[in-house]
């Protein structure tokens, strides 16, 4: 017993080191299982506040860029509105009016990215909206030029989302020209490209084909532009293409984003 005590005292620094490293390892493993405690990540008020403050200080640098991209987006929206109005005119002549929740199942909440990363294996970003703005886990996040991620943890005023640059992100995407679809995943280290898998080999593909969201899951509406095909090949013995997609959105520069709330789903569940 005495010897044991002497041993512990003699090697106490080493034992302390081992214990602390064990704690750190447990934290890492828990983190990898996506079971983070909510107050130790950036959706907690403490670090969220600080990031929000810092973001305000930085935002004056790129006001010009933001204005340009907003103007661009407005132009696109206007085009869409005109097209839709025309379509609706045609429908209303032909059919009786339909319930508005069938026509407009999506509600868009705008938010800003206040913290972002792209150079880790599993990337996350933080938004400045939370439960108070009716954001819930599992909603999709879209950006002006494409898609950005999926909401993961929600705090009262801030929320974190897993980026599309995350090893667990799988997004159902389709080729617009011929409607073949597959799932979009990210191979580490290149934030400008993603891989579209499981497109069958009879599909005819061209470099430059447009990739859009398929709408087969409720996370993203159908037809959001994601990027274009930059390369495609067939792995030996496979029946499916591996397609490299060049993303339209530069995830490193995410700023203004939109969270997609699918209201139709809740009604069908009830």
């Amino acid at each position, binding site marked *: 017993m005495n010897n044991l005590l002497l041993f512990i005292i003699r090697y106490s620094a080493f034992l302390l080191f081992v214990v602390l490293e064990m*704690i750190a390892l447990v934290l890492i493993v828990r983190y990898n299982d996506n079971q983070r405690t909510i107050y130790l990540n950036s959706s907690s008020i403490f670090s969220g506040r600080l990031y929000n403050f810092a973001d305000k200080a930085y935002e004056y640098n790129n006001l010009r860029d933001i204005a340009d991209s907003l103007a661009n987006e407005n132009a696109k929206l206007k085009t869409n509105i005109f097209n839709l109005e025309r379509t609706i005119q045609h429908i209303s002549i032909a059919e009786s009016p339909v319930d508005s929740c069938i026509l407009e199942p999506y509600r868009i909440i705008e938010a800003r990215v206040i913290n*972002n990363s792209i150079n880790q294996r599993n990337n996350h970003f933080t938004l400045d909206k939370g439960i108070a703005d009716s954001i819930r886990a599992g909603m999709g996040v879209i950006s002006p030029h494409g898609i950005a991620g999926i909401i993961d943890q929600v705090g009262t005023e801030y929320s974190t989302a897993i980026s599309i640059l995350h090893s667990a992100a799988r997004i159902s995407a389709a080729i617009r020209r011929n409607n073949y679809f597959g799932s979009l995943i990210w191979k580490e280290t290149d934030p400008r490209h993603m891989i579209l898998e499981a497109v069958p080999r009879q599909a005819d593909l061209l470099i430059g084909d447009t990739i859009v969201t398929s709408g087969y899951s409720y996370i993203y509406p159908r037809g959001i532009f994601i990027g274009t095909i930059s390369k495609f090949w067939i792995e030996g013995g496979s029946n499916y293409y591996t397609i490299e997609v060049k993303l339209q959105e530069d995830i490193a520069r995410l700023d203004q984003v939109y969270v997609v709330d699918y209201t139709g789903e809740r009604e069908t569940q009830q």
Partner: protein
Amino acid sequence: MTQSVRHILRGLLIIIVQVLILKRISSGSNWLWLHGAVFLYPIIILLLPIRMSRHYVTIIGFLIGLLIDMFYDTMGVHAFALTATGYVRGILLSYLEPRGGYTTAMSPTRHSMGINWLMIYSSLLMLVHVFVYYVGEIFTFVYIGQILLKTTITFLMTMMVIMGYHLLFNPRK
């Protein structure tokens, strides 16, 4: 007393610089930043008094690591690396001990120990820190090439800011 207050204030400032400025710098999308980052915060451990007990240094390393993790969203990885750095520091200091031992007046700075001693001390500890960090982040030795590449790039950039800090501010304590 004033000594420890100064250490704490300096530590907080360095952490703020790390998470608000250096983190943003190292989130660019070009090749260099995809494989590297800049870590200034280990300098807090490097600058702790030489005669401080190994236990305290290890615990302080763990706590600062956790704080950095909160801002980097990398729960536990920085804590893992900085605990190792804090522990190895004690071993390294006893290897680098000058003839006649450390006096109370000595501190791990350029002013007190000279640039050669400081270079050896900082670079060995940073090598340990950065390597353990990427082992913790990537978590498997299958990607040993990637671990070594990232360690090399991050190590070089980290040494630049740490030696830059010493040359610019020339801390006495």
